[in-house]
């Protein structure tokens, strides 16, 4: 009973593989140098996958991420292969918001090459840009360590996924959470409530397993409920054009987004790279 399904999938696979091969033939026979502008897929870095392959990827990356949570590429792959519905949801929310719509059309990227660190350093304390820079320095992270999206089969949704990854650090700043395990779990709870991505939900459920008793208590009594409530009631965080709000005061931005300041002040005690 499985065999006809397998054979049917195999035939579809032939179409995909052969059409891919022929398309690439067009691309490569014209130029021998493959630059960024000449790529195979819907966007640079895109890899075509069948639903079966996506399922296997989701399974494999899930297991790998559980075994070694520091494998961020596996967490990324898990997010991409399981997040289709949630991404469509977020994209629709962004389309309905005027600022979100601007983001979808202008497609800003947050990378060291696009950030002006000197300008951020010159901003007053308490401004969003200054606090973000402080967060990067204290936690020893860089915005360039995000993996590129590979397995999302829609170019706009791939951008939404990429934007979600790049906004993650900004969320840390907004929520005042450091990059240690407790801070990450709190941000995951917020993101799970906000975005509905299965990968966030999985991280939110399994992350606490690695916390000690004291931190678990802090999570379940104060941080967790705060993160969930704010995740639900805040405005869609992906719809904010952060790049134009560096000078805005962080308190102001929090009020605009409907986020309460954290109930517990956590400091960056563990030095870890994201």
């Amino acid at each position: 009973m499985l065999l006809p399904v397998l054979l049917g999938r195999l035939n579809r696979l032939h179409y995909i593989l052969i059409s891919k091969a022929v398309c690439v033939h067009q691309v490569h026979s014209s130029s021998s140098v493959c630059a960024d502008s000449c790529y195979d897929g819907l966007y640079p870095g895109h890899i075509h996958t069948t639903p079966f392959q996506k399922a296997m990827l989701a399974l494999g990356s899930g297991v790998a991420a559980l075994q070694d949570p520091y494998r961020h590429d596996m967490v990324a792959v898990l997010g991409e292969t399981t997040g289709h519905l949630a991404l469509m949801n977020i994209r629709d929310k962004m389309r309905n918001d005027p600022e979100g719509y601007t983001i979808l059309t202008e497609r800003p990227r947050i990378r060291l090459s696009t950030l002006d660190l000197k300008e951020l350093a010159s901003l007053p304390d308490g401004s969003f840009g200054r606090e973000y820079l402080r967060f990067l320095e204290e936690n020893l992270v860089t915005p360039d360590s995000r993996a590129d999206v590979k397995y999302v089969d829609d170019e706009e949704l791939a951008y939404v996924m990429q934007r979600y990854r790049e906004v993650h650090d900004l969320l840390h700043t907004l929520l005042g959470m450091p990059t240690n395990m407790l801070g990450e779990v709190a941000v995951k709870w917020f993101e799970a409530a906000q975005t509905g991505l299965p990968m966030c939900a999985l991280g939110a459920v399994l992350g606490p397993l690695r916390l000690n008793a004291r931190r678990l208590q802090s999570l379940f009594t104060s941080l967790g409920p705060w993160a969930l409530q704010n995740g639900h009631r805040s405005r869609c965080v992906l719809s904010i054009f952060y790049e134009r709000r560096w000078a805005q005061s962080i308190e102001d931005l929090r009020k605009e987004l409907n986020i309460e300041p954290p109930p517990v002040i956590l400091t960056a005690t563990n030095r870890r790279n994201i």
Partner: protein
Amino acid sequence: MAASMRLLLRRVIRYSHRDINVTAAGAAGRSGCCWGPSTCRCSSDDAGDRSTHFGFETVPETEKAKKVYKVFENVAQKYDTMNDAMSLGVHRLWKDVLLHVMHPQPGAQLLDVAGGTGDISFRFLEYVRSQQERQKRRAARSMQTPSWGDISSNYSSSEDEVSPQESRAVVCDINKEMLRVGKQKADSMGVTAGLSWVAGDAEELPFDDDRFDIYTIAFGIRNVTHIDQALQEALRVLKPGGRFMCLEFSKVTNPVLSRLYDAYSFNMIPVLGEVIAGDWKSYQYLVESIRKFPDQEEFKHMIEDAGFYCVKYYNLTGGVVALHSGFKL
């Protein structure tokens, strides 16, 4: 999902006239045959530029070596782990069969081309060592009751006895990263005697003529741009009486097994590559390059054309892997 299927359908319709033979053929093992091995190897259509295949892509010949180098540089660290995962450990059996068919005697000189992480060379040294032990034991047993003639000849020969030449294995690979990983493995295993590591191109080996007793190339020849040149070089560096042995993925003859094998190759192997090594594309190249390689009979003819005699092949695991062997006379 729907968008990608629509895109796919549009592409298929646009190129269907080109693909009709391929899709009608059905059996996945034949999916590469529309290119025809001889045409895909060098088609001089674009302004005198010779192109060849890189998996299912067509690239200029000059590009292929570079791209293959990149692939193996990326996978070198996880190469052995991936081999175990992809073949479920069966690749070890294939390599053991190669050694058993080779049956090297102590004193043999081995050249292991595209030897990379050294699997064949380590097995070779192990085999030869155990052969040596066996010979010593046999000699000791036969010397239990020596005759007077034996004893006297022993006395005379022990002074000017020519020490038997030590077996040596030379691992030659074009990729320095793979050689590095292999050397690390050798150091951690404590194998150093009789082993050397040389960076070199299979199409232009840095060795003199008539140097080696055995030439092996395991799972490497399909990555070479000009297979006939590699075969010529093999003939050159072998001593007369030397043996050429090649382990390579080949065509599965059984149609049911073939479809299962293809389904497994295209669905599971790149996924394993992504999950274990973080590299989908290199393992996509791997499964595609297997499809582009000539089948058992054709490769046998190629080896005969290069000048080898008594060429035969053994199918392993139903044709998933073929072991070709030929002699230089």
